[in-house]
């Protein structure tokens, strides 16, 4: 169970200087604001404790002496001070929020941008959920630190210092007596925090148990019902629910003890002030106003101390999160290799695989010395059973993964000599699983490129004959696609991906044809689109369509990571080898239906 949450359980330090130094960098661009923030924090921490001090003067110097004008004056002064304090507090709250949010904004953007530069191996190795939480929830924890933890701690410390100063300036003995309850307070709140944390963790475990039970049973409800398990599962649920309730009730206990205890300690302080201070007043060593002031300080003093342990928690969590974030940002080895400098506007399209060996792991070779060459403008079909290495070939060609031995050349250059983004933008890829983003049809076609006007998009869509279905969508090119394009049919999604490639006008197309069947009409459109996309370009296709096979100049047959046969459809059929079998398995049926 513990493994479920180890990620967000703080256990380490509440203050790590190394991490803090890196964090502070995100606030530094706003030096002026930081300056004002600190200034306001100091000012309002000073004004707050000043009010009880002034009320003490009001009582002793004016009320007790019946000085009318004096009372009005000091009343007005207190009011003005209050207004300033509020003003400062407002400014301070806003500035800290602004600073915190700005820092969070920048940090989040930095993490996201960094991740965009990492290679696919990194994305394969790390669970998506974890990466997502680096950008989202981990940053959110820091938000809490910036806006309510860090500044509040400094503000509170200033405030405590001023109160102490004013108290000791007035009467050091009464101050010591008032402060005598402080150690209990500090001890108590840290004890409470520890207990509360334990109980919180226990509650979290119980909540997680409850949730996973419910999650499992709601999604497996048919099994529960078919196996007549309702009564027994209800009994199990009640047991978990009971534990969940009891964990909460235990938690209530700590809270029910802590708040009354704090209450009691402040009452104790008041009682001590009345007892000792009262005696001093009677002996005329002290005035009533001072008593009044001290009673008010008890409240002002205790609240920050009570909250201190909570702030400690926030800091601890923030340190844990920033540690995770910076660990990620330090993953430089996973940044995509881009050492090539060769920038070309156009590729001729000659592709050559020269004894290429590739493995994702150690020596588990997926490609075992694959060699073949494609002339500019040639259309090549890759054919093979699942796991034969077709997908790997196109992954290597787009430089998604490195290969271990051999060379891949385009136009005679090793592909790694090209500058990465210039290189990739000359190669168009249509993957089997068409990936569409939440957004409009237009955005999905241009993928955020603003230099493609709508007219051009429409033209490309007309060529692929996708415009007929797009124009029927509500809002046409502004029609909003749901996640992964769920509100389009499979065929429509494929047509969209063809328009996309046409718009990007690559020199080499790589096509991984989808196997899923579509209706005859759409199938016809797709066949046309494939033809269009391959026209005047070098094309490498993982073919699933008979028509594509027929249209290709050359067929490369892969089997278990090796090129086994090469030739035209007719040559290979005559050979009566692997291709013939594959053909009968994968394509023959289309002869009848197509």
């Amino acid at each position, binding site marked *: 169970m513990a493994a479920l949450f180890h990620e967000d359980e703080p256990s380490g330090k509440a203050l790590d200087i190394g991490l803090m130094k890196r964090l502070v960098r995100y606030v530094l661009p706003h030096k002026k604001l930081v300056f004002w923030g600190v200034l306001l924090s100091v000012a309002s921490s000073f004004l707050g404790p000043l009010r009880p001090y002034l009320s003490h003067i009001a*009582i002793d110097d004016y009320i007790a002496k*019946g000085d009318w004008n004096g009372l009005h004056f000091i009343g007005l002064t207190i009011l003005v001070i209050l207004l300033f304090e509020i003003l400062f507090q407002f400014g301070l709250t806003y500035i800290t*929020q602004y600073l915190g949010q700005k820092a969070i904004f920048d940090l989040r953007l930095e993490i996201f941008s960094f991740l965009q530069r990492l290679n696919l191996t990194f994305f394969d190795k790390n669970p*998506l959920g974890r990466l997502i939480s680096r950008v989202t929830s981990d940053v959110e924890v820091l938000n809490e630190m910036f806006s309510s933890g860090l500044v509040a701690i400094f503000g509170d410390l200033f405030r405590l210092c001023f109160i102490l100063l004013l108290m000791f300036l007035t009467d050091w003995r009464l101050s010591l007596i008032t402060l005598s309850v402080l150690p209990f307070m500090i001890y108590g709140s840290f004890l409470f925090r520890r207990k509360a944390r334990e109980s919180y963790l226990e509650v979290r475990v119980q909540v997680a148990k409850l949730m996973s039970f*419910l999650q499992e049973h709601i999604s497996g409800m*048919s099994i529960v019902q078919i196996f007549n398990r309702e009564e027994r599962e209800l009994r199990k649920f009640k047991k978990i629910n009971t534990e969940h309730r009891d964990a909460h009730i235990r938690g209530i206990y700590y809270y029910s003890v802590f708040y009354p205890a704090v209450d*009691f300690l402040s009452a104790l302080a008041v009682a001590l002030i009345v007892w000792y201070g*009262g005696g001093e007043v009677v002996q005329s060593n002290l005035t009533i106003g001072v008593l009044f002031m001290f009673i008010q300080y008890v409240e002002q003093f205790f609240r920050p101390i009570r909250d201190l342990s909570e702030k400690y928690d926030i800091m601890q969590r923030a340190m844990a999160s920033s540690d995770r974030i910076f660990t990620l940002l330090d993953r430089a080895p996973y940044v995509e290799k881009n050492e090539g400098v060769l920038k070309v506007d156009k590729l001729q399209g000659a592709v050559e695989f020269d004894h290429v060996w590739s493995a994702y792991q150690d020596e588990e070779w997926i490609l075992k010395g694959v060699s073949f060459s494609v002339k500019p403008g040639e259309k090549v079909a890759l054919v093979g059973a699942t796991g034969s290495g077709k997908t790997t070939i196109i992954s290597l060609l787009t430089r998604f993964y490195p290969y271990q031995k051999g060379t891949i050349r385009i136009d005679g250059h090793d592909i790694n000599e090209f500058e990465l983004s210039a290189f990739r933008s000359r190669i168009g890829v249509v993957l089997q699983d068409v990936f569409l983003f939440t957004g409009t049809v237009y955005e999905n076609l241009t993928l955020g490129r603003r230099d493609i006007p709508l007219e051009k998009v429409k033209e490309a869509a007309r060529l692929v004959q996708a415009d007929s279905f797009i124009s029927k969508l509500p809002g046409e090119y502004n029609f909003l696609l749901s996640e992964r394009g769920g509100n389009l049919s499979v065929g429509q999604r494929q047509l969209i991906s063809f328009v996309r490639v046409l718009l990007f006008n690559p020199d080499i197309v790589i096509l991984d044809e989808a196997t899923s069947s579509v209706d005859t009409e759409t199938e016809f459109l797709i066949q046309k689109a494939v033809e269009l996309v391959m026209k005047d370009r070098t094309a490498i296709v993982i073919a699933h369509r008979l028509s594509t096979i027929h249209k290709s100049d050359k067929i490369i047959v892969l089997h278990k990571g090796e090129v086994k046969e090469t030739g035209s459809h007719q040559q290979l059929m005559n050979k009566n080898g692997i291709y013939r079998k594959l053909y009968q398995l994968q394509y023959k049926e289309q002869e009848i239906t197509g």
Partner: protein
Amino acid sequence: MNQQESAFTALKSLNPYLVRYRKKLLLGLFFVLLTNLFNVLGPVYVSQAIDSLKSSVTTSGLMGFGLIIISFAIGRGIFLFLVRQTIIVVSREAEYDIRNDLYTHIQFLSMSYFKTHSTGDILAKNTNDINSVRSYLGPGIMYSANTLISFIFIIPTMLYVNWKLTLIALIPLPLMSYLVFKVGKIIHQTYAGIQAQYSTLTSRVQENFSGIRIVKSFVRELSEIEQFEHLNRDYLRKNLKLGRLQAIFYSSMSLLTGLSVVLVIWFGGYLVIENQLSLGNMTQFVMYVGMLIWPMIALGWVINIIQQASASQARLNLIMNEVPEIRDESGTDHTIVKIDGKVEFRGVGFSYPDRENVLRDISFSVQPGEILAITGPTGAGKSTLVNLVMRLFDVKNGQILVDGNPIQSIPLKVLRQSIGYVPQESFLFSDTIRNNIAFGVEFPNDEAILDVSETALIRENIEDFPQKFETYVGERGITLSGGQKQRTTIARALMREPNILILDDCLSSVDTQTEDLILQGLREVMRQRTSIIISHRISTIQDADQILVLNNGEIAERGTHESLLKLNGLYTSLYQKQLLEEELKALT
């Protein structure tokens, strides 16, 4: 207004829970009363102590005051403790009941409900909605009672001491309630907006990461970053709005409370000079004002809690009032207590709410001891067909008969008890392997568990685990392979000794050799039972008594393996493909 009224009536359905715990609740309210009594008395003695300083007071007299203040604080503390131990505890107990009732109800609902409502949706009712209802039952009730009672205690006391000062001191306080209520609401809405933006941001990140191949191959990293920045900036803007609101909110709260104190000192001071008030009384007032601040804040807060709770309860009522589509009704024949296993479909047609004609005009009949096999392409309606046998859905057209009785007349429990079902997606619970295998029987015996594991060819695997049958499956334990899972679900089905055995493409993840062995073992078991087997693999079904080839919801071909091969149609081409696949695999 109308909507609000109906929302508030939603909370009425919580009354039974409150009635159930009325004793504890009343006790809690009584403790609230006592807490406030001590609360109001404390300052009275502080006041007296201060005023006594003017006259000659002895040290022991002062100590007396000190002790009284402390003992009141102790009394107050004890009852404050008891308040939380009663009212808040009751809210957890009621939450427990509500959750049990909700779960019990969910178990009764039919598959059509789960098909139209996502797991996430139902879970949200169990978490967010129950939580906000719990907030109303606990803190909601506690703070409203406390606010009410502290007003009743403190304000008359203040009025008694000095009514003029009371009126002046209290001026800012109602403003505070209003502020908490109004701004609290706006803050809540802004916060909801932030949450929504946060989830937009999260799903954008998620989409980007899962579509990273497309992003990279079209070199769209920069525009992705730009779009992310855009969303991020919106999020920043919304957060800053919240920051502004909070700044306004907290500052005005401090202003109002500070104002109360200033007013007391200023105007109180005037009264003291005029000899209408003692200094002690003034201190008392300052303390009372301090005591009223929290109840005033709580008032505004509680109103928001109640509003949220009523909206949540309305949602909960929606699911609680849902009537299960499939259940025993007046037509159920309770004299049926056992099923032999003859299954007959007569012109059965079926549609899902979102998909028409999943099955059309299906007729067949299968006897105990016979094997009916169903094959056909994905999406042909094979799984739907067996779901109808288990009555997870009711047919739209035609009729299903079991032992010659209409399926609707058979008590649901009796019907399902006689079925051993192995689903297509092996679903196991996070529990021990033993409990998973024994899932469908009330009193499992160890020997039977071993037997069925043997038949399903999983026994050896299990016994290789360090904890054998006590091994945990799932997140907390071991991850079984696809094939192991499938074999475990087979054992689970066999464990019931069912008269109808349904295997829904459940051998897809085991290799052909293991499959052969399992089928051999099953053959013995199937001898006395009705068996319905769905499979893509011809090798699995070629010995069946009858084979149905489904295509697009209809029976395209039917017959035995031999007779189907002679047809030279869909079945034949499936068969040939599989032979080829085998051949290819054997090639090196």
